[in-house]
């Protein structure tokens, strides 16, 4: 069974799924004609191409020599993603500094056994650096701390 779950079959299935998903999601788009193409002409053509290439890639996975998928670990994947999302959702309501601390705390979860102290100090340094470069230096319209009630 696991022989079939190699890089090629999975990548092929992924492209097949994206292509098919695009065809379904874009079924209401107008294709039009060559001299007056609708908005769907090129994107749906791209979806069909992905379906075709996906099948081709998956077919390659039947070979015995198809490369196996290296096992991954969920922890770094989740921690890094969480760090980015934490920043995204904290920035506008809570300001840059809290967003950075939230992000750093999430990022630290990527590896086990990181002491809180070795997260907070770098996060403080990082906050200062970001404020100095982006806010005071480049004058980006970011606020440092929570801004409630204002505009």
């Amino acid at each position, binding site marked *: 069974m696991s022989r079939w779950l190699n890089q090629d079959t999975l990548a092929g299935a992924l492209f097949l799924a994206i292509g098919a998903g695009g065809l379904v999601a874009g079924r209401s788009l107008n294709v039009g004609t060559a001299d007056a193409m609708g908005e769907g002409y090129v994107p749906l053509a791209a979806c069909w191409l992905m379906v075709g290439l996906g099948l081709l890639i998956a077919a390659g996975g039947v070979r015995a020599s198809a490369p196996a998928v290296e096992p991954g670990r969920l922890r770094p994947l989740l921690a890094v993603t969480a760090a980015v999302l934490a920043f995204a959702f904290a920035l506008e309501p809570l300001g840059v500094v809290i967003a950075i601390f939230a992000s750093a705390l999430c990022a630290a979860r990527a590896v086990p056994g990181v002491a809180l102290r070795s997260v907070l100090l770098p996060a403080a340094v990082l906050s200062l650096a970001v404020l100095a470069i982006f806010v005071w230096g480049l004058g980006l*319209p970011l606020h440092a701390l*929570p*801004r*409630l*009630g*204002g*505009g």
Partner: protein
Amino acid sequence: MPIQTLVAGALPAIVAALAIFLQPVCAAQPVWPSKPVRLIVPQSSGGSTDLVARPLAQQLSAALGQTVLVDNRPGAGSVIGTEIVARAAPDGHTLLAIAASFTATPALHPKLSFDSERDFAPITVLSAFPNLLVVHPSLPVKSVQDLLALARAKPGMLNYGTSGAATGTHMSMERFMQMTGTRLVHVPYKGGAPSVQALVANEVQVNMATISTALPQVRAGRLRALASTGARRSTVLPELPTVAEAGVPGFEYASWTGLLAPARTPRPVIDRLHAEAVRAVNSPDLKALLAIEGAEPVGSTPAQFAAQIRLEIVRWTQLVKAAGIRAD
């Protein structure tokens, strides 16, 4: 223990948050402008609105004693930036500088989340600029009449370029075709510069381009100007007739840049902004700048501007229906 520590730790934070939250209520009604003013330009920087908005922001900053910050929020044919202003607090700290497409938007996007008339307090039209009707020099037409004759002889043969579907250059051509009963094929480009380049490369034969993009090519002999689209002749090409003079009576198209605030912005704030904006556009600096673009300062009153918006919205809605243009 953990809960106690948590509470002990969180308490100062809660107090601080409350203090910040209550601040606007406790503080006395601030004098406008009490903080930097955001001037939203729903267009990327370097565009024609931005070119007016930036020097305007500079002069307003000096006059108001608070920074007026230009904030470019391009996207979805200006809808994204316009929406921000429609939803902003009407306290005079958020303003909108916008191009003439503002009045075409309601016709093109029936599902807008804002009302272009009701949600805004017009302040003034800053500047107005006509377009140029230009053709490739290899086209055997020397006047608007020649062009009409050719277009009528071979309907659907000539292509015209625009800076995008439903932009001013497109709408003015649609109007031109509607009034003259001609049919040219629309070829949209991503912006004015590529559309003028395509005209120079003879990929399309006609364009109603903005003066600033077309003028250098006209001066270099790469394009032939047939007419300007305003009600009066353009100051940069006074020898050139208007489209109306050249045989399409009643045709007039001039793009403009306007300054608006969210609806319900206090009257004194609007009046102050109007006075300062009119002074700014009539300053020698801005006047000179506008002249390069082939534009002229306007400075109409809020009431005149409101009437103009109402009229144009009706006009564009009729045109969009008649021509079957869609952008949504």
